[in-house]
């Protein structure tokens, strides 16, 4: 069918229009990132001109500055502690809960599953005041553990829904057989079921990582100089001098790089992860 229609002028035109439109979409998607990248590599005097300088001698000066002469490495460290901590807390808890919720059916379990969805709609700002007040009273303000606990809790519905989808695909006989062979309930889960759903755990972990990596509002209020992550640092980076724009572009590129890598790696798993696992119901 394709071969037959290639010759028809109308079809060729339609095809060209589709390609052109897609090209525009790709260009618009990439352009802001391209702009940040080039700005971070330009001398400041080349960066902010009209018309824009398209050809320039690249410099790594701004990247060097931001990573060697500002506290950015410290913020990166905080981001890493928060993201890794969140994954380590959130994924085991979420997997276990998902396993239970996939294994048993009842009315209360249905209700629980849908109440979990409601967490996604929740106006997060409502909890900001109590978090702040309790954190201050409990001397948890500006600590990694506080942020980890909060993000892990908000991530539970996602981890549970996603992992439940994977556990539903595991035959019930598998853990039951293991238990007849003398495993405890937990051993059957840990040694028999979990290895089967490893790809799911991987997907859940990476998306949880991204979720923690991108968190802004809670970190903005609940961290100060000690636990502040990259996302907040870059947003607060001053703009008094024109060089700041070059520096923040370098910082932005530093933050974006892992995400671009993430998307490239996760291409196949995007649908499952990014749609909150709800498509499967």
């Amino acid at each position: 069918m394709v071969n037959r229609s290639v010759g028809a002028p109308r079809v060729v035109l339609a095809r060209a229009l589709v390609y052109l439109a897609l090209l525009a979409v790709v260009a618009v998607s990439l352009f802001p990132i391209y702009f940040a990248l080039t700005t971070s590599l330009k001398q400041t005097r080349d960066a902010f001109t009209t018309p824009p300088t398209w050809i320039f001698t690249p410099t790594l000066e701004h990247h060097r500055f931001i990573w060697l002469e500002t506290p950015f490495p410290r913020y990166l460290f905080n981001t890493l502690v928060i993201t890794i901590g969140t994954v380590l807390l959130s994924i085991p808890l979420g997997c276990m809960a998902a396993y239970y919720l996939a294994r048993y059916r009842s009315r209360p379990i249905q209700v629980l599953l849908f109440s979990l969805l409601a967490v996604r709609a929740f106006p997060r700002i409502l909890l900001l005041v109590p978090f702040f007040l309790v954190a201050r009273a409990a001397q948890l303000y500006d600590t990694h553990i506080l942020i980890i606990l909060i993000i892990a809790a908000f991530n539970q519905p996602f981890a549970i829904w996603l992992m439940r989808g994977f556990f539903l695909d595991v035959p019930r006989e598998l853990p039951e057989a293991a238990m007849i062979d003398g495993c405890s309930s937990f051993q059957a889960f840990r040694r028999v079921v979990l290895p089967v759903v490893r790809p799911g755990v991987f997907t859940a972990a990476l998306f949880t990582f991204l979720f923690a990596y991108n968190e802004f509002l809670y970190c903005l209020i609940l961290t100060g100089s000690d636990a502040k992550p990259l996302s907040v640092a870059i947003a607060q980076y001053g703009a008094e001098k024109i060089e700041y724009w070059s520096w923040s572009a370098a910082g932005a590129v530093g933050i974006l790089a892992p995400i671009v890598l993430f998307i490239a790696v996760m291409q196949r798993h995007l649908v499952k992860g990014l749609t909150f696992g709800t498509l499967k119901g």
Partner: protein
Amino acid sequence: MASRQQRRDRLIFLVPSMTVLAVILVYPLAYSLGLSFYNYYLPVPRTTFVGLENFRFILADDAFWEALGVTARFTGAAVAIEVVLGIAVALLLDARIPCRRFVNTVVLLPMAITPAVAGLLMRWMFESNWGLVNYFLGLAGVRGPGWTGDPAWALWSIILADVWQNTPFVILVVYAGLQSVPVEPLEAAMVDGASRAQTLAHVVFPFLRPLVLFVLIIRSMDAFRIFDQVFVMTGGGPGTTTQTITFYNYVMAFRQLRMGRASALGVITLLILSLVIGAWIYLLYRREKGEW
């Protein structure tokens, strides 16, 4: 009714996760509800019970209604554009195209970007003097507005920024849906000599309907509480023209330091959101009961 085995499993598997949820989400929620009946100005370490005074204040507060209007306009415009554009791009991607994997990856990229950083990128794009949006508009012979600095256009800057970042989500879901359109009706339509437009309207769109509704609800919920991009792009300004509900709540709590009042605003937001989303889900899904 639950067997001994189930009760034991519940304790081992479910209780830890639910404990974290209860401590981190449910307890502060209750705290917040309680606080909304108190006058609590942070610098003064004393709270006084004021009943519904905070609620009365907010409902009589012009800034609240303005913020609600800004949020409604933002949500309506952003979600409408994203859904229409997203469906269109998903249909384009569904055509036979070269380097499909690369194109798919690139098109989805913006949604994974840290919202605060996306806001920063967009602030640069919309900068009125050397920003590229105005540069390209200039090439087309249009004199671009001041965008984030112009009261008439600031909200549009944020809407367009949100469109850039979140249209990919719509594309993703609709595109996934298109991959699973059942083959038989498509073939039947082809055999019957239906045009591409007819096939779309009578076979593909009805199949996509639940997915589009799902996207509409998810996107509306997220758009309603936008904060990060506002914080980075305009800080709620110029004046209060881009002050959304969440942003106003933030200002109330952490600039005006009115903790009780801010809690009340949070509770009001929760009520509005529940009502709107509830009504919406009811209306949208009424015709397809049980089709979650």
